[in-house]
């Protein structure tokens, strides 16, 4: 099967013109919808005081007002597609944003959806409107869920990306440094024709749900306004990956820490032997993973990945270039031991993290750090794991 790749909507002239026409259309529609809504809204208010049967009139008026609200939300989406919505960009960490929105994602996607996150280590900061970026990720995840049959998986992965000249030409992206947010599904994928309409407003393959086709165009408009890029890779039978590229924020100021406890460095001395250590963290609570990253950085280590899925962790354990792994004992209700076995087979040292109880045999004597732990405790167990390996 051939993979269909829609790299950048502007690449082909015809597609660029089509998009431009759609932008004009959506903007015009938004303007007109607002006029209509204004009439409905104010006529409704006036009728309340002039009608005879108050109860019946009130019930009808409530209905009119609810539709006025729905129309308002629609026009907002249309303007977003036109990349003209008011935004408030701030420096932020995409990994922290995703970590903080885990509950929202679970609520929105429902219990049946299997979502895994693979958060790249040392992720660069970006400048973006926080609420809109969160909404964009939710929209992409919703699309992925809708495309995925029961039992399928949705993966949200972040990484730093350096797009060089040769790549830029191929991908239709300006050369530079970007943070990528990829949302992948294991659904049926898209045909070339469907993919070519993926950015059309109101286009949807979801027959049962009206007016849901603005998801991808809305995200596209927002990403464009952030001077980023959006690519869609899809193949029938193998699923779809939508990747957002946001320009790296190149400023001295760090991205703000959101709702995180202050970590105190128990020892200011940076221990020898841990400098530059590449560490893989397997943890299904993203916020705890972020805290672990902070502690590892204090020790001079570098978190090269934060994985929440057991399947993905086993995969990485077998092949990733890491010096050490930090493994939460319980990943989504399953023991992490298969990951430990894979690492052990390669001779990669590791230690466990646990919030309760002891390890099962034969791991009982293995280095383990009990949550909550501080930097000194982590350092001690890392050194024990590295010594045991030698």
């Amino acid at each position, binding site marked *: 099967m051939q993979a269909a790749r829609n790299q950048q909507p502007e690449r082909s002239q015809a597609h660029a013109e089509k998009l431009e026409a759609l932008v004009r259309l959506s903007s015009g529609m938004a303007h007109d919808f607002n*006029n209509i809504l204004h009439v409905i809204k*104010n006529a409704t208010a*006036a009728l309340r005081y002039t009608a005879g049967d108050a109860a019946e009139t009130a019930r009808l008026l409530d209905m009119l007002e609810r539709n006025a609200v729905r129309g308002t939300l629609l026009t907002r989406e249309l303007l977003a597609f036109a990349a003209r919505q*008011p935004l408030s960009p701030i420096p932020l960490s995409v990994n922290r944003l995703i970590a903080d929105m885990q509950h929202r994602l679970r609520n929105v996607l429902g219990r049946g959806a299997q979502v895994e996150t693979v958060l790249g280590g040392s992720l660069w900061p970006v400048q973006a409107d926080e609420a809109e970026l969160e909404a964009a990720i939710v929209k992409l995840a919703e699309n992925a869920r809708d495309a995925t049959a029961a039992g399928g998986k949705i993966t949200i992965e972040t990484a730093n990306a350096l797009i060089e000249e040769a790549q830029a030409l191929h991908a239709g992206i300006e050369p530079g440094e970007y943070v990528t947010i990829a949302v992948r599904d294991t659904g049926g994928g898209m045909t070339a024709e469907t993919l070519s309409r993926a950015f059309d407003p109101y286009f949807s393959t979801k027959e049962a749900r009206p007016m849901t086709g603005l998801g991808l165009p809305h995200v596209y408009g927002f990403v464009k306004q952030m001077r980023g890029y959006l690519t869609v890779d899809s193949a029938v039978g193998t699923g779809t990956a939508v990747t957002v590229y946001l320009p790296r924020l190149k400023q001295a100021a760090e991205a703000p820490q959101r709702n995180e406890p202050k970590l105190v460095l128990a020892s200011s001395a940076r221990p020898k032997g841990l400098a530059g250590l590449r560490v893989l963290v397997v943890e299904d609570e993203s916020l705890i993973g972020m805290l672990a990253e902070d502690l590892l950085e204090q020790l001079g280590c570098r978190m090269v990945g934060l994985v929440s899925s057991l399947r993905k962790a086993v995969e990485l354990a077998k092949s990733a270039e890491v010096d050490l792994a930090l493994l939460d004992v319980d990943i989504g209700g399953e023991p992490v031991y298969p990951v430990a076995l894979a690492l052990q087979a390669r001779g990669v040292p590791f230690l466990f993290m646990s919030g309760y109880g002891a390890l099962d045999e034969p791991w009982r004597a293995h280095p383990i750090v009990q949550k909550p732990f501080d930097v000194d405790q982590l350092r001690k167990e890392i050194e024990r794991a590295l010594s045991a390996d030698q």
Partner: protein
Amino acid sequence: MARILVIDDDSDVRTLMVYELRVAGHEVRGASDGAEGLTRQRESPADVVVTDIYMPEKEGIETIRDLKEEFPRVKIIAISGGARNPSAGGFSAHDLRVVAGELGVIAVLQKPFDTRELLRSIESALGQH
């Protein structure tokens, strides 16, 4: 009680605003575009002009400039339904507020707005000298 001129190319929006402002006790006339609005203003100057921004033929910003040039003391309230054609230079909500502010516009109301918001803006405009 004030003399108010409402300029909007949407006849329903215009008719409704004229009606509501009259119910509120004001003397109100309507115009369907910027050119007609200027004509009406010259015939019988209003204290407050409420004008839509995105209209065919003569855009609201241009109308505002012309009004301010001929009638420096007129109070202007801008109303907007959003960018009709961003490719032709339509404004984002933020940019519109900036541009309107520079032209001395009292307030920018985004449709759909409640008539009470408009009435408050008019009261505020009348309170200014």
